[in-house]
């Protein structure tokens, strides 16, 4: 953001997001709005996982675990911090919609996202450092085990509801506040996307891609490959934690089972389908793979749930056979490229 015009654009985007955040809940169909919000969170999760799996070529299959850390830490902060810090929020957490709600929810939302993100990043560092030193698939095994550890910790911890789920604390009478709105979900999504895109098209990002391409050669040109991998993993985990906090304050009740291996696998599917390393691929794939099941669920009912996992697995297998690099490969979808595609036949 160097030129003044960029500040103007940024402000305009914030204005549009805020306006939509006020208008959409009133005029949009509830189900459509819900799908929109869940898709936005999925975009955050997918693009952040792509930093790890796509850019640096590692294989994390525990992204939902980091989302869980962000969700529980973030929600615990707004619930237990209510009396001391966020007393201006209603105890039942219903801040309603409208312009005022934006202002009321901003502080707690920011604090919660930051706390959730930092907690996930810290744990990402602790988990990542030992496993990323080694070459090979240690990260996959460790992240898989990590999800289980998180589950056991949460289920044995009554202050976050244990196995019953966390929606607040009865003793102090505070519920998880409904402070997630369109503004924050899509504001964060834009930040993650910009971050990934700006990294990808810069010399800093080249180091991440080089680690994916050839670790030995990367080291030979002076890249500290362990540090690069840990950086990507910590940043990816941070955004997963932020996504967790957004999710918790949208649903207002979180169950540890919503962050299980199956959920992690969903994120991996999204990233692989979109194309490892392709930011636009992750975005489109996240939108489609979140919206489609929701739509099918509402039209087919419970029946659909039985087939969801099977169809994902089939989708992945077909993908591997037909187009192993993912829909977008490593490339990016851009308007310039589209224009060229349409132009070519005309000029030749």
């Amino acid at each position: 953001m160097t030129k003044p015009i960029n500040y103007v654009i940024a402000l305009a985007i914030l204005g549009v997001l805020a306006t939509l955040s006020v208008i959409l809940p009133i005029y949009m169909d509830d189900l459509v709005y819900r799908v929109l919000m869940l898709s936005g969170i999925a975009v955050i999760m997918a693009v952040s996982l792509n930093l790890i799996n796509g850019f640096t070529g590692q294989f994390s299959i525990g992204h939902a675990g980091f989302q869980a850390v962000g969700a529980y830490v973030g929600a615990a902060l707004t619930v237990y911090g209510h009396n001391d810090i966020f007393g201006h929020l209603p105890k039942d957490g219903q801040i309603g919609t409208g312009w005022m709600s934006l202002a009321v929810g901003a502080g707690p939302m920011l604090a919660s996202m930051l706390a959730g993100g930092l907690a996930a990043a810290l744990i990402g560092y602790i988990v990542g450092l030992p496993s990323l030193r080694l070459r090979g698939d240690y990260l996959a095994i460790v992240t898989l085990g990590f999800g289980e550890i998180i589950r056991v910790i949460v289920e044995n911890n009554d202050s976050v509801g244990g196995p019953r789920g966390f929606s607040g604390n009865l003793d102090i009478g505070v519920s998880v506040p409904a402070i997630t709105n369109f503004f924050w979900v899509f504001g964060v999504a834009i930040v993650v996307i910009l971050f990934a895109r700006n990294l990808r098209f810069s010399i800093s990002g080249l180091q991440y891609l080089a680690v994916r391409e050839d670790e030995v050669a990367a080291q030979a040109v002076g890249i500290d490959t362990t540090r690069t991998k840990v950086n990507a993993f910590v940043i990816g985990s941070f955004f997963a934690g932020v996504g967790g906090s957004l999710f918790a304050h949208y649903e207002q009740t979180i169950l540890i089972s919503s962050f299980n291996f199956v959920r992690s696998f969903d994120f991996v599917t999204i990233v692989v389908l979109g194309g490892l390393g392709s930011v636009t691929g992750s975005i489109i794939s996240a939108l489609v793979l979140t919206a489609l099941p929701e739509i099918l669920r509402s039209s087919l009912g419970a029946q659909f749930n039985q087939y969801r996992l099977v169809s994902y697995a089939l989708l992945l297998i077909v993908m591997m056979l037909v187009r192993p690099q993912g829909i977008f490969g490593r490339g990016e979808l851009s308007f310039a490229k589209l224009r060229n595609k349409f132009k070519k036949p005309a000029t030749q």
Partner: protein
Amino acid sequence: MALLELTKVVKRFGGLTAVNDVNLAIEEGSLCGLIGPNGAGKTTVFNLLTGVYAPTEGDIRFNGTSIAGWKPYRISRAGIGRTFQNIRLFGELSVIDNVRTALSVNDDPGILHAFLRTPKWEQREQSTVKEAERLLELLDLSDVAKEQSNSLPYGRQRRLEIARALATRPKLLLLDEPAAGMNPQESADLMHLIRRLRDEFGVTILLIEHDMNVVMQVCEQITVLVYGQPIASGTPADIQANPKVIEAYLGTTSEDAS
């Protein structure tokens, strides 16, 4: 003091001694060759020098400091660049990005600058493009700058490896069979370039090469390695006249030919 000094360096892989008691000194500004039959341990010496392996015994001093056991990226930053016998490019990156990746190690403004696209970031991006273009020009790769690097023919991939190694701004450049897979014209051009690198840019060079014409023409000092051990060291004329070399080295080559 020599730029690079190996003292009694040994490398064992289990029961196999790939490098056995090697003493070697490379003077700053020299252009040296390391030759020997297949499996003699030449590449292993490079891997020891660049930290891919730590020596089992002995010491390696570069610029006066012991670098034995250092991680490869630290050795690279200390000033030893290399190319690989079995080409290792960042295959899906473009030709120019391969070189820019190496430049980025010194010129990276940091992830935050990249995210916010600050003036510092913009300036670094442009300077690496310019510097990379200069290196590509030097290695005659300008016309393919934007192409994906693994789509290049063999000879040009080897040149790109040299460009990338130069981008780390090395004091010492290790070239592992740089002319392999090149036709005689290409390899003659390459040798001309290697001499230029030393003369104009002051890079000290140690190269492994099987093509004897090439080695004898370009190198000023040659060390012959057989079964992990140096059996002779000297000028091309010394080496060609050395009976031990003729027996051990040329003996195996004629066996190879039969």
